């Protein structure tokens, strides 16, 4: 029987009908819908055992003692280490993004050699190390020819670097400017020595002058924990916090009182307060009390009002609060962690002397024993050094950059970057492709903190000697990197020096031993604490006599750089996971917003959203205006951390860099370079 068209149609119809009685259609539909739930480009989760390992996250300036959570051995999150008495389970917003930063697109993936302007070629480690040895070997023994800039003031790596320089006949080991650097100078001006510490936990009134202690000053997480302990939710607070500074920042937001003080009037404010306290009967046994008293008397409430705009009642209220407190504590610093003069520090610290709180609230830390022989850091900071390089006063042939980003984070940043160009061979040990690495001739990738041994000794602000150690969380770094200290120790050996160690881990073990600490306990997330040393301070009256009178200029505005820890630091551009936290009134698209009060804006002739150019010295930056009534009168607040020219797509080219318009001046009587009192002109564009 032949199959004709009609028969064929019948078979097809029968086939279709039959199919309805099979799972073909229904199962296929179901499977296709399931297939559509798992697109191949949607990432899958990792599986395996979840563990938490203690680590030291040196992504933030102070370093957070944390626990890194891993799944199947891969780090995925950072949690607090509740057993560590310093962080008490808290984590700062930068370290919270630590696991993801291991895979940041800005990471340097292998050693890189510069082959042209902005062009690099990946090279092997053995070639990179040979190049380093060759360049340093040529200059060995020539004083002033090899220098180093470091941004790590807590790690023992610094001892290795300065030891290496010493062995090569050089002493130019320069630290990036920091609060600690200035504070130690201040302590000297007050007749003492050592790094000052501040016991926030033991105070019942904390006056923070400029120091953004609850967001970016000092060991922030420890500070925040100390603050939190005084404020049980739902019960009465046991301590008062007062913030006096240029911007109603994160610290001011939770303080009981905020006093807007323009950045250049910090010392005048402190001395005005001293005057009120002395008037109310405060006396000190310090040898220079009479001199100090006479000096403070010049800073009447009227004078303070002229300098700061603060009303007499506000000052009197604050003085009364301090008088009523049993354990007041004053912390002075720049609102952005650097560039304040020593005099600002002395003015604030003198209040602690006047209140009899040195030794109790404000402490002095003894010098710690060194693990590696050598002299330590120079008396000058990196800014002063690079200023000399730009004028030709210093002419190094080789520069080692460790955990520092001078091309981005020094005042008049563009000039500093140019000064770096005067140095023939620059090597950067950097985890990320930062602005300075991008200028260097050789980039040696450093491990991420979860991939290496490192340590933290006395992060600035701690009340007693403190030592933390971190061990690697992962077996192998995710990039082709080597520990900078291991590389330097290897280079030292090839240059015929013996520093006594082969690896950074050995150096840290020796450091722990020198301190009398248990390395294993520290590496497991523990802490070592010593005792602060005794010793009195005077009121620093002779230094304070040089405090210049402040005049509020109508043409220029005071510049208040604002640090916001979540947005990164000099050595870390905003982590990708933190971009969400940046407000659209701070950064919109590629526009950074500078902030000022409506009154200030009116005087400057600008309005909300206006595009402006800020200029000072040779530098200028572009931004838009956002009105913020929490900014001190006559002041423009600018967020730091933006305007990156290197890094990755998440940060590059977004906003502008405030360092470009910070101007350096010489502080009267201390010889320090300062820039906390920078002024700028604001013009509409």
């Amino acid at each position, binding site marked *: 029987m032949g199959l004709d068209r009609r028969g064929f149609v019948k078979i097809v119809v029968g086939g279709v009908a039959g199919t309805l009685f099979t799972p073909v259609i229904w199962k296929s539909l179901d499977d296709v819908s399931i297939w559509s739930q798992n*697109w191949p*480009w*949607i*990432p*899958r*989760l*990792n599986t395996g055992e*979840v563990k938490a390992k203690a680590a030291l996250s040196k992504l933030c300036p102070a370093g957070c003692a944390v626990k890194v959570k891993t*799944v199947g051995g*891969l780090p*995925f*999150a*950072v*949690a607090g280490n509740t057993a560590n008495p310093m962080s008490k*389970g*808290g*984590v*700062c*917003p930068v370290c*919270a993004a630590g696991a*993801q930063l*291991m*895979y*940041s*697109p800005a990471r340097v993936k292998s050693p890189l050699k510069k082959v042209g302007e902005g062009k690099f070629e990946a090279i092997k480690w053995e070639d990179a190390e040979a190049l380093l040895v060759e360049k340093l070997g040529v200059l060995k023994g020539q004083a002033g020819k090899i220098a180093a800039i470091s941004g790590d003031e807590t790690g023992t790596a610094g001892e290795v670097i300065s030891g290496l320089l010493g062995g090569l006949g050089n002493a130019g080991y320069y630290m990036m400017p920091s609060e600690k650097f200035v504070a130690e100078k201040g302590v000297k001006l007050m007749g003492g020595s050592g790094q000052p510490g501040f016991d926030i936990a033991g105070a019942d009134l904390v006056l923070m002058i400029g120091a953004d202690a*609850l*967001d970016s000053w000092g060991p922030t*997480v420890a500070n*925040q*924990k100390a*603050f*939190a302990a005084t*404020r049980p*939710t*739902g019960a009465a607070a046991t301590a008062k916090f007062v913030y006096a500074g240029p911007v*109603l920042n*994160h610290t001011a*937001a*939770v303080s009981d009182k905020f006093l*807007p003080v323009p950045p250049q009037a910090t010392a005048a404010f402190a001395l005005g307060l001293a005057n009120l306290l002395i008037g109310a009967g405060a006396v000190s046994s310090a040898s220079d009390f009479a001199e100090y008293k006479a000096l403070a008397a010049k800073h009447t409430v009227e004078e303070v009002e002229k300098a700061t*705009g*603060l009303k007499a009642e*506000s000052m009197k209220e604050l003085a009364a609060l301090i008088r009523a407190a049993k354990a007041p504590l004053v912390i002075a610093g720049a609102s952005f962690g650097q560039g304040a003069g020593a005099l600002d520090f002395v003015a604030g610290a003198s209040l602690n002397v006047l209140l009899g709180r040195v030794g109790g609230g404000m402490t002095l830390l003894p010098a710690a024993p060194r693990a590696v022989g050598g002299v330590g850091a120079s008396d000058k900071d990196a800014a002063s050094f690079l200023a000399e390089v730009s004028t030709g006063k210093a002419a190094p042939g080789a520069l080692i950059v460790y955990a520092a980003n001078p091309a981005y984070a020094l005042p008049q940043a563009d000039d500093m970057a140019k000064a770096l160009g005067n140095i023939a061979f620059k090597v950067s040990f950097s985890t990320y492709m930062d602005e300075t690495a991008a200028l260097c001739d050789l980039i040696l990738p450093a491990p991420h903190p979860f991939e290496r041994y490192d340590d933290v000794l006395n992060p600035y602000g701690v009340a007693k000697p403190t030592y933390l150690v971190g061990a690697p969380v992962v077996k192998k770094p995710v990039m082709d990197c080597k520990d900078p200290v291991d590389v330097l120790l290897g280079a030292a050996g090839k240059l015929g020096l013996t520093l006594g160690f082969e690896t950074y881990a050995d150096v840290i073990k020796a450091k722990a031993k020198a301190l009398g600490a248990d390395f294993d306990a520290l590496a497991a997330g523990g802490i070592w604490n010593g005792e602060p040393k005794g010793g009195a301070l005077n009121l620093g009256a002779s230094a304070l006599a040089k405090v210049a009178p402040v005049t509020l200029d109508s043409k220029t505005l005071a510049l208040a750089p604002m640090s916001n820890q*979540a947005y990164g630091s000099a050595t870390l551009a905003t*982590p990708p*996971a*933190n*971009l*969400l*936290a940046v*407000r*659209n009134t701070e*950064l919109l*698209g590629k526009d950074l917003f500078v902030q000022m009060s*409506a*009154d200030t804006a009116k005087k400057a002739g600008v309005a909300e959203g206006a595009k402006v150019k800020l200029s000072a010295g040779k530098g200028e930056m572009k931004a838009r205006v956002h009105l913020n*009534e*929490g900014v001190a009168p006559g002041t423009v607040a600018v967020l730091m951390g933006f305007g990156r020219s290197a890094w*990755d797509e*998440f940060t590059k080219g977004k906003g502008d860099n405030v360092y470009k318009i910070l101007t350096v001046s010489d502080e009267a009587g201390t010889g320090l370079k300062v820039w906390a009192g920078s002024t700028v002109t604001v013009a509409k564009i």
Partner: protein
Amino acid sequence: MSHGATKEFKVTWGMVIDLDKCTGCGACMTACQVENNIAPMVDASNKLRTLSWVLVFELNNGKSGAEAEVAYLPRPCMQCGNPACVPVCPVVATEKNEEGGIVSQIYPRCIGCRYCMAACPYHARYFNWEDPIFPKGMEKALSPSTSARPRGVVEKCNFCHTRFMQAKEKARQEGGKPNELADGAYMPACAEICPTGAISFGDVKNKEHKVFDLAQGKDAFRLLEKLGLNPQVYYVSKREWVRKLGDNYAATGKPGAAKKHS
């Protein structure tokens, strides 16, 4: 709206956020992104596209100089007792049915109509405009807690629900009672990481949990209480202007309307 629609559970997971302790540092937002596998966005300043399961708002009292005050307000999903988002979902992709009272969101089920987003007065829900593409290699740092969502679906905070599951597993393993977790056994990532401990978390119906008392404190309030959605997130502030902003004058249209949560 009636309060009668509120679903009651034996355990009611609740959050109490002390606004006088929140510095606005943003650690909670970062921890949340990490826990819940939210891919970083190149332009995160486009707030119409970002995904912020917990979002820290900045409030100010409108004054200037020494009178000026600022407060930061972290806003997770309120896990409303009587959620506005649930009844509007045409495909039951979101519901409030599980013990503990957490409002669920099931991504493969969601059709992306966004009715729930329109319904939520707290703007706690987010739409995935883009696929979760991580920078190369960063997918190795994905958290095992939350499945990655494709573009086209809505997502929101779920009090780190997987941690709730994990806490129950641990309780089972240790021979405890998974339905009567001890205070602190289950903590969302934001509450765990907060460096000032501004975020407390627990069962607001269990006297053993510290949030029980905190949620009833005299300075405790909830956002837009007059809408009757009965949120499971409480805020605490001694500052009156902050508490007033919390109800956004919803009761009378005038600031400072008298109110007390039920």
